[in-house]
């Protein structure tokens, strides 16, 4: 009965408030779920798929750049204890799909025991094609997607070289990870030939036979291997990639979590307003013997309802939104770890449960203060009109003290180092700063009313004076709305600061560092993500056409340095020393490369220098396949194309350790007399029909780099729009409640001569003042958070030092937009106030 009186009937009569809150919660949850789902899908083949693709393999033997397949012979004595499965693997561009796929070369005769997908009834109908030719097994969903059947041919681009493979069979992917939809399986020998890895393997998998202890097997295998080979569980590969991606994913999720903060405020506001509106009924029920617990249970049920319904809708919207976000996230991920094909977004029950749990937890947490309020509602006899809620002096001092303490905490946290390379203290400081807006908004509104009281009173007309006084009096409710708007604008300003700083830095970086006339890279997928590397033959073609002194191929390989993944790279120092390349702060790039060329030294990027505390003059020691390389560091360069460490040596040093490697890309520094467009045509003529590559001129290259950054920030831009919508909804809800609370007062004003226009102006002015307060506080905190993001979070996450650029015109625009939007949000409640019939209200209210 209590539930019906306090919740169900009011809900049926006025469902909009519940719906608006549900939408707000759903939006916050959708932001989190879509971010996680998109980032997971973007790295599916590494993060979740490694274990599945590894099948039942318990150990893997690997080496940076691959291991010689003769290693199999070294391990022959272990065959009684384990299956030894040779594997080659790489990402290739599947032309029919327009996207990258993982090409897995395994011993198909042995592997049926290892990988689940090959355990079907007849996975190898055409043994000749698969074992002797370039036959491949693809998943049925992939085959359906690209419209092929067994017997059809596919074209893959490997190192820019188009190769043909045949669909030998289809395998079912039901019940398996989504990664299998982007895996093409071939026999190891043709795969080695296709991938240009003849004589090499990417890993050897060990599958212990029954009764064999894995640790003992590992020990015996280690005794047989050379020191440059690593033996570990398959999860180690995942750890490597996850380390590289950890900061990126953490930052994305942390930013999306802020939208949850705003959603939580919205829930608290809604529940609090529902308490206000049901105050009389609650006090009546208390008079008739209803306990506080029973009354409180109603609020909890409402919160739970909001959480459940909002969570379900949010999860559904999140998975849909992830599809939209996937391209942007993949682009961002590709800047960290290249060549990862993404899987499609699939419904993940665990993520759905997490989203629902987050929604419920947020709703229940937000119900704490409204719960406290409703439990304090006295029985009817003690019910009084709510007096004005101006802050007492003691409360103001406490709020001020709390804000000062929070400010100190923000500064302390912002100066703390990262935890496991994650900027947890810095992001926490940003969160505390945002929370400070919620804590301080009441004080702000109260101060606004006090300070504005005199000038407002001197103005002709009572609208501003009444609006300021009403805001101050309804401070507790209005503070929540002001707080949520302030958080939204703070987030917007912080992100705008980060984006403008990034853009200015990258523009400056491209201006000073991108000097090549042409830049050749592998063909990109439809999403714009590069796939694979260039074939070494392409370098020879370019050198023949334009001269070796014009060609700068760039090679890289991920290696382990002090337990962390870094890129070890080789470039043509003999070429770039005449032209310069990446910018070295305070130094001439060409001079640095000339020094590196003459001294056979290395240059490193800022992320490497920051993470490993390396400065110019230090010597670094790299454990590479077949030996150790020690080089002095003669320069630290700015690098915004990657977030992990990079060590660059001359290509001769690099190729000494990885002789079969193809370059990631190639820069051409043409003589002045050669027109880049003409050169591009000549190059394409030379490679036509043999290689599929792209060649960008300098202008196109800079545009591509800037476009990559715009796409990277697209997802964060979307987040603050979502947050702004939620905040405006909070303003609308609160103002409607304030108007509802003040019906008698508003009717009195009408009765003593207030016009409808004046009441309308009063409520809109209230909304405007709320917007001004929120915009002011939000902008200030947003600048502080922006500085933390630019100067601390980016440095700790990615090792990037950025130039701080505050987007003043954007901030002014945002502030103005917020004020206008709040005033627009104030229109519906203003119309309600203006339409009050004074006689009716005064009769009702006594």
């Amino acid at each position, binding site marked *: 009965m209590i539930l019906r009186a306090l919740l169900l009937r009011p809900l049926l009569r006025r469902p909009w408030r519940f719906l608006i809150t549900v939408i707000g919660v759903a939006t916050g949850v959708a932001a989190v779920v879509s971010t996680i789902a998109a980032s997971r899908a973007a790295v599916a083949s590494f993060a979740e798929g490694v274990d599945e693709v590894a099948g039942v393999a318990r150990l893997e033997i690997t080496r940076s750049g691959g291991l010689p397949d003769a290693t199999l012979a070294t391990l022959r004595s272990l065959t009684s204890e384990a299956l030894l499965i040779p594997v080659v693997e790489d990402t290739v561009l599947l032309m029919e799909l327009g996207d990258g796929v993982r090409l897995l070369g395994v011993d198909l005769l042995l592997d049926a025991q290892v990988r689940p997908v090959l355990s079907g009834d007849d996975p190898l109908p055409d043994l000749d094609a698969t074992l002797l030719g370039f036959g491949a097994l693809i998943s049925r969903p992939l085959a359906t997607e690209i419209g092929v059947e067994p017997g059809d041919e596919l074209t893959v681009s490997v190192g820019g070289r188009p190769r043909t493979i045949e669909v030998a069979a289809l395998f079912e992917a039901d019940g398996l990870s989504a990664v299998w939809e982007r895996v093409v399986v071939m026999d190891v020998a043709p795969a080695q030939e296709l991938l240009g890895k003849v004589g090499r393997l990417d890993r050897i998998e060990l599958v212990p036979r029954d009764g064999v202890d894995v640790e003992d097997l590992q020990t015996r295998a280690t005794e047989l291997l050379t020191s440059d080979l690593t033996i570990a569980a398959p999860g180690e590969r995942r750890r490597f990639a996850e380390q590289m991606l950890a900061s990126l994913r953490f930052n994305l999720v942390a930013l999306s979590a802020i939208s949850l903060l705003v959603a939580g405020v919205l829930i608290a506001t809604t529940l609090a307003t529902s308490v206000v509106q049901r105050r009389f009924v609650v006090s009546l029920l208390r008079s008739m013997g209803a306990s506080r617990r029973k009354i409180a249970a109603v609020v909890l049920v409402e919160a739970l309802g909001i959480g459940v319904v909002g969570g379900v809708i949010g999860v559904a919207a999140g998975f849909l939104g992830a599809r939209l976000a996937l391209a942007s996230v993949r682009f961002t991920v590709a800047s960290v770890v290249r060549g990862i094909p993404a899987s499609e977004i699939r419904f993940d029950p665990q993520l759905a449960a997490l989203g629902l749990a987050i929604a419920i937890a947020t709703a229940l947490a937000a119900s704490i203060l409204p719960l406290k309020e409703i439990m304090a509602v006295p029985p009817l006899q003690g019910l009084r009109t709510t007096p004005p809620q101006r802050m007492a002096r003691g409360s103001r001092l406490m709020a001020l003290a709390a804000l000062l303490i929070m400010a100190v905490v923000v500064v302390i946290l912002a100066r703390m180092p990262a935890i496991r390379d994650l900027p947890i203290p810095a992001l926490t400081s940003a969160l505390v700063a945002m929370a400070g807006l919620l804590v301080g908004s009441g004080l702000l509104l109260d101060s606004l009313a006090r300070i504005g009281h005199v000038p407002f009173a001197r103005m002709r007309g009572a609208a501003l004076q009444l609006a300021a006084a009403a805001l101050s009096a309804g401070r507790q409710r209005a503070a929540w709305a002001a707080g949520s708007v302030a958080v939204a604008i703070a987030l917007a300003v912080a992100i705008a600061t980060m984006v403008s700083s990034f853009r200015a830095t990258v523009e400056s970086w491209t201006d000073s560092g991108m000097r090549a006339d042409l830049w050749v890279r592998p063909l990109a997928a439809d999403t714009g993500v590069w796939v694979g590397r260039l074939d070494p033959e392409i370098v020879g073609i370019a050198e023949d056409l334009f001269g070796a002194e014009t060609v700068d191929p760039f090679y890289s390989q991920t290696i382990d340095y002090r337990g962390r993944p870094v890129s070890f790279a080789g470039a043509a120092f003999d070429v770039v020393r005449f032209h310069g390349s990446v910018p070295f702060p305070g130094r001439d790039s060409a001079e640095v490369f000339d020094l590196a060329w003459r001294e056979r030294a290395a240059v490193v990027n800022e992320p490497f220098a920051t993470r490993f505390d390396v400065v110019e003059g230090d010597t670094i020691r790299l454990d590479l396949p077949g030996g150790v390389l020690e080089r002095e560091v003669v320069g630290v360069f700015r690098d915004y194309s990657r977030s992990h460490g990079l060590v660059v040596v001359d290509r001769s040093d690099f190729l000494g350790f990885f002789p079969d490697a193809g370059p990631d890309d190639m820069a051409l520094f043409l003589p002045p007399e050669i027109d880049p467009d003409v050169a591009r045509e000549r190059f394409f003529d030379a490679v036509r029909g043999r290689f599929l590559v792209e060649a960008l001129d300098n202008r196109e290259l800079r545009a591509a780099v800037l476009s990559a950054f715009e796409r990277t920030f697209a997802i964060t831009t979307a987040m603050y729009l979502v947050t702004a919508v939620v905040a405006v909804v909070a303003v609308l809800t609160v103002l409607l409640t304030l108007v509802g609370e003040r019906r008698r007062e508003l009717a009195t004003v009408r009765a*003593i001569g207030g016009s409808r226009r004046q009441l309308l102006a009063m409520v809109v002015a209230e909304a405007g003042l709320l917007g001004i307060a929120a915009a002011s506080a939000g902008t200030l905190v947003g600048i502080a958070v922006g500085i933390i993001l630019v100067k601390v979070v980016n440095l700790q996450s990615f090792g990037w030092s950025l130039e701080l650029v505050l987007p003043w015109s954007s901030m002014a625009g945002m502030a103005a937009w917020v004020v206008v939007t709040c005033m627009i949000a104030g229109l519906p409640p203003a119309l309600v106030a203006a339409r009050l019939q004074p006689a009716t209200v005064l009769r009702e209210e006594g």
Partner: protein
Amino acid sequence: MMEDSGAAVGSGSVMETVVEIVGAGRDFHRGQEVVRALVELSLTLDAGELAALIGPSGCGKSTALNLVAAVDRPDRGSVRVCGIDIATATEDELVTLRRRRIGMVFQAFHLVPHLTVEENIALPLALDGRRDSERVRALIDRVGLAHRAGHYPSELSGGEQQRTAVARALVHQPRVVVADEPTGNLDSRTGAAVIELLDELRRSEGAALLLATHDAKVAAAADRIYALADGRLVD
């Protein structure tokens, strides 16, 4: 027609009729039910007069006062206040009438809770875009609240609140003051003091007073008494 200066029309004439109600009726709809709050009412009030409306609860006193105060319109008959026909006047005309010609005192005081005493009293002037600090302060003194000018209604006693409401009702020099059971929430002693104050002030301001009351003593002091029962005047 309203004069912007707010000066009384025909202010020299004691017998000028400021309120004229002829056969006025007002109905309210509660779902399917029609409640005839006022069936047929006719009364007049001259400038400077004190008229009392008496009758049991639910007889239509408040409804009648709301019509005179121009916060409601009649469904039947005519209600003219300071020459304005309430039934046919535009919204702007009614607003101007309330701002400049009519003052209201309510049983429940109805002060704006987040404005001080001084601000509440000044509110009708502010709504009309006017300021007159001297008049406001003078009224505060006259109602004996100089020491409470900066306090909020929640900090005042019932009598102090009603005195504030009385000052507010007179600050803009209205022609008509409408008081709906102004002593209903006060003890007898305080109520008597408030009535005395209200009467004294309105006399000095030259305003007519239409007062709804249960109090026989108050009614007895009126120039005219109108008794209502079931929405009609009774003898």
